[in-house]
């Protein structure tokens, strides 16, 4: 019963959120000085006459007042039509689906990598609190959080493609090879550097958080008692440390989808990786309004899903909540 109620509640929240985001985005774009027709035509501006301009505007529905355009757009969205991307000349939904498929693997790899490394580093730092290991890890984390992600990507590019040419310069697949011939190994090979760079973005956050939480746990009465029973070192960490910091760490990792997406935008640009992040940059620099709005909504959904999963994990795993519910019913 409670589970369905929670799900319903989340769905209602999601609908309200998406509605609010789309209204605000639409309002922002309507008052913007950017002329989408000009953005669409680009450099060919001079050769296009007034009539052609009007035709293009009519084609995109730009000649109608904003409210009407919004309602029109909303109606289309509810029917699953997010409009057509001006740059890619394809339905927005198709572009997003296609691009996200590329980004998804990259995001997943980086997400797992940063989670595992961050958790391990944070645990180690806390267990060795005050030692040089702790200091090095902390220093490294603070340094990482001050490092522009795209600069880290550039450095890795210089080192691993120019000086030691062991990785390809970019793109998701080898150039000049038809889609059928691309193996998953090719894809993996092209993904290594971007994934490593993207994981750097998340590591420091999760590591510092894990360290903080573990220190809290290590200072708790139940760890003091565990120590009184003779537990120490790895055994203590495994029995009481890991168990108690795992949930908050996983939750944080799911709640970090926002930074992850932002990181992907930068990293895909550096590595010319044809994912959704690159499409975001294209859409905003070249004024592809339908695509940009689609991406804003999609990325909002992405962040929401991360947070919703975090809520569910707590609900399903933490015995204090799980068993508590069972006793109530």
């Amino acid at each position, binding site marked *: 019963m409670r589970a369905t109620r929670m799900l319903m509640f989340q769905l209602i929240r999601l609908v309200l959120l998406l509605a609010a985001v789309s209204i605000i985005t639409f309002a922002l774009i309507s008052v913007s000085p950017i002329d989408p027709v000009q953005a669409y035509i680009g450099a060919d501006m001079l050769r296009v006459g007034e009539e052609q301009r009007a035709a293009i505007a009519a084609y995109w529905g730009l000649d109608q007042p904003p409210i009407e355009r919004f309602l029109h757009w909303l109606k289309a969205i509810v029917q699953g039509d997010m409009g057509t991307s001006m740059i890619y000349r394809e339905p927005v939904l198709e572009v997003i689906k296609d691009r996200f498929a590329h980004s998804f693997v990259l995001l997943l790899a980086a997400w797992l990598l940063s989670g595992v490394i961050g958790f391990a580093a944070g645990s180690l730092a806390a267990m060795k609190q*005050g030692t040089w290991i702790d200091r090095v890890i902390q220093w490294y984390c603070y340094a990482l959080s001050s490092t522009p992600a795209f600069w880290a990507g550039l450095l890795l590019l210089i080192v691993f493609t120019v000086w030691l040419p062991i990785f390809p310069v970019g793109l998701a697949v080898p150039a000049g090879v038809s889609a059928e011939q691309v193996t998953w190994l090719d894809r993996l090979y092209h993904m290594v550097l971007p994934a490593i760079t993207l994981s750097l973005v998340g590591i420091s956050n999760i590591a510092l958080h894990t360290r903080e939480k573990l220190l809290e746990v290590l*200072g*708790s*009465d*139940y760890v*003091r*008692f*565990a*120590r*009184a*029973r*003779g*537990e*120490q070192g790895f055994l203590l960490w495994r*029995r*009481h440390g890991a*168990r*108690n910091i795992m949930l908050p760490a996983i939750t944080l990792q799911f709640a970090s989808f926002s930074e992850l997406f932002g990181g992907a935008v930068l990293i895909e640009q550096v590595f010319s990786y044809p994912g959704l992040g690159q499409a975001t940059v294209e859409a905003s620099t070249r004024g592809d309004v339908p695509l940009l709005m689609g991406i804003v909504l999609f990325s909002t959904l992405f962040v929401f899903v991360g947070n919703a999963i975090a809520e569910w994990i707590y609900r399903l795993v*933490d*015995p*204090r909540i799980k*068993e*508590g519910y069972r*006793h109530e019913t």
Partner: protein
Amino acid sequence: MTLLDIRDLSISFAMYDRWLRQTTQPVIQSLSLSLEAGEIVAVVGASGSGKSLLAHAILGLLPQNASVAGEIMFEGKPLTAAALSKLRGSKIALIPQSVQYLDPLMTVGKQVEQAARIGQPKALRQSIFRSFRLPEGAAKLYPFQLSGGMARRVLVSTAAVSGARLIIADEPTPGLDEAVIQETLRIFQDLSASGAAILFITHDLAAAAQIADRVAVLREGRLVDISPASSFAGMGEALSHPYTRALWQALPQHQFIEAVGWNDEA
């Protein structure tokens, strides 16, 4: 044979105030106390008198900003950090104050079994649970699901299964009904009869006088008096120290006399 010998122990805490100036806060001052094997010594004091810190100091579990002076000897050897890491849980066991001291995310049965150092953990845990009248189903519960009395018995079981020579019981009785208190005290007597020394830290002077061999009174971090338990009789005529006598006379079962600075934590 002297099992535990505390000589001139002082504990203080370093603190930083708003502008990062360092200040020190003394909590225990030049405390000396010794325990023979098979003996029960009660340390009685109000909350804030530094009782729990004494327990943590013996086990080497004080927070990092605490500094300790003085000497603690166990079986004639100094209790250094290295010695402690071998003795904790096997020769010295702690019975902590509250259910807060149990891992919230682990079933209590598992936690008791992990404390076992002699014999087969599960069988040991089961027999201890039986003798404490804890249902077998309790082993599958998480700490937050235990009632106050059950939690207390679980905490005592962790020490009972360890087979330790020295048991430090930190406030094991509050919140229990009279029958369970009596049972807990009986368990302590059984444990000491089998040769274990028990340092019984409490604010319950009546319970202390009932089972202890000697009663030490702690006030504001200083040990003011150590008297044999036999002196706690009648109106306390045999007690030499006025503070101790006042405490004894202030107990509800005696006539009510205004106690000296006695703040019960209940």
